[in-house]
């Protein structure tokens, strides 16, 4: 298939996805750092952004493996890729509006599954791959992180009982900065490569690149820049949920949560069982709350987030399928333009509404319950700061 016009749109939509991936997942690395004041909000986000960009250049080993083992690779066509990306962006933007930390990778996988089912039916989806690569890690990741972070917080609390408060705060905050840096590099390497994989796949499908050809340098550069720019914008709504919503984090809790996230993510990469960064980071923060004497966690909010995780795959899938049918209805070239325009319209609508109750670097650490009525008010149960 040679259609440069469609190829250009695939690249543009893929960059758009990478951008949303950046701002959606900023919270995974920086939320505890921002919440405990280890770094100023803007500084934390800039640090994370630069390291995300650096991470994108560190490795290219997983490029072009997106959705492998999830859908039949032979059935992938350009409109399926675009449909998947549009579905993932739509779901990312929606969950961002509600301040819900959900997995961008699962949104992408869901979008591609939906578009693929619309194109070739359910037989083109490898359901066993979904259980092994998506569902099992989704359940394991937050549970592992929660249990480890709870034990780690409890241990740190006991070991530093006789340490003076000023030294403890300073020491733990320094530790947080280090783990934020490591998480940001890991995120840049991992997630920027997914988009590089999508663009490479499109280049191969278009005949621009030979099969198994190396990812072009310009693809690496634009993907790195897109995820870095997205991170720089800062997904403040999600940073707020993770940093202030689940529990009130002390520097010790912030450190144990982040060290747990770093270790679980790196170990899972090392053993070839990649776990969702978002699920691990969320589980770690909940665990840090559980590890305190008062077990001060807003479980109702955690339940709502878990419910969003459950519906991520079907909802992104439905969006992906709609985007695919839309393209088919208008013809491939014009359909791509129409569906991209619909996506831009939807994103603008969400952005406009988000401005009514804006969360940014200035109010991200405000008391929980003061902003975003839809998310905060129903879960305003008091969680008093715990001295750890």
């Amino acid at each position, binding site marked *: 298939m040679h259609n440069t016009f469609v190829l250009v749109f695939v690249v543009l939509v893929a960059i758009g996805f990478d951008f949303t991936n950046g701002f959606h997942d900023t919270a995974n690395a920086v939320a505890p750092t921002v919440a405990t004041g280890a770094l100023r909000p803007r500084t934390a986000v800039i640090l994370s952004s630069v390291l995300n960009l650096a991470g994108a250049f560190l490795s290219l080993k997983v490029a072009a493996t997106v959705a492998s083992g999830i859908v039949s690779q032979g059935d992938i066509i350009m409109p399926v890729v675009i449909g998947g990306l549009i579905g993932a962006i739509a779901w990312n933007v929606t969950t961002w509006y509600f301040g819900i930390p959900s997995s961008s990778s699962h949104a992408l996988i869901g979008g591609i599954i939906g578009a693929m089912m619309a194109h070739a039916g359910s037989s083109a989806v490898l359901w066993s791959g979904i259980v*092994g690569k998506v569902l099992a890690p989704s359940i394991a990741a937050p549970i*592992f992180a929660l249990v480890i972070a709870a034990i*780690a917080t409890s241990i740190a609390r006991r070991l530093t009982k006789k340490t003076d408060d000023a030294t403890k705060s300073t020491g733990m905050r320094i530790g947080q900065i280090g783990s934020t840096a490591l998480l940001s590099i890991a995120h840049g390497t991992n997630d920027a490569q997914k988009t590089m994989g999508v663009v490479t796949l499109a280049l191969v499908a278009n005949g621009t690149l030979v099969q198994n050809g190396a990812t072009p340098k310009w693809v690496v550069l634009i993907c790195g820049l897109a995820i870095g720019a997205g991170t720089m914008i800062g997904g403040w709504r999600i940073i707020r949920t993770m940093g202030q919503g689940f529990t009130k984090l002390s520097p010790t809790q912030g450190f144990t949560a982040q060290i747990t996230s770093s270790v679980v993510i790196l170990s899972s990469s090392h053993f070839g069982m990649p776990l969702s960064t978002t699920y691990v980071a969320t589980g770690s923060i909940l665990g840090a709350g559980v590890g305190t004497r008062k077990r001060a966690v807003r479980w109702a909010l955690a339940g709502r987030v878990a419910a969003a995780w459950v519906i991520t795959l079907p909802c992104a899938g439905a969006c992906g399928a709609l985007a695919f049918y839309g393209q088919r209805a208008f013809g491939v070239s014009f359909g791509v333009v129409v569906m991209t325009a619909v996506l831009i319209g939807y994103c603008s609508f969400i952005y406009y509404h988000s401005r009514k109750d804006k969360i940014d670097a200035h109010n991200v650490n405000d008391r929980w319950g003061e902003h975003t009525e839809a998310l905060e008010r129903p879960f305003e149960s008091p969680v008093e700061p715990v001295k750890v």
Partner: protein
Amino acid sequence: MTAPTPATPLIDWHALVQVLYTSVALALGLVVIFSIGVYSLSLYRRSDSTIALRSLSVTAMGLVTLVILAVGVWGLIVIVNK
């Protein structure tokens, strides 16, 4: 007659258990080591600490820094080799 090929398990339980063991050992180990480092810094800063105690604190902090740096380097190697 050829032996039947063993079916690939749906979930890689072996990798999952390895991730759990490694994460528990590393996370708890790091938290313990770092907490000792912070406690050592606190001892060093105390006005009533003796020279011996200060020397011990500095040694402990040095060792903790080395361990933390080693883990950071391991992390970067894992990221690059992924």
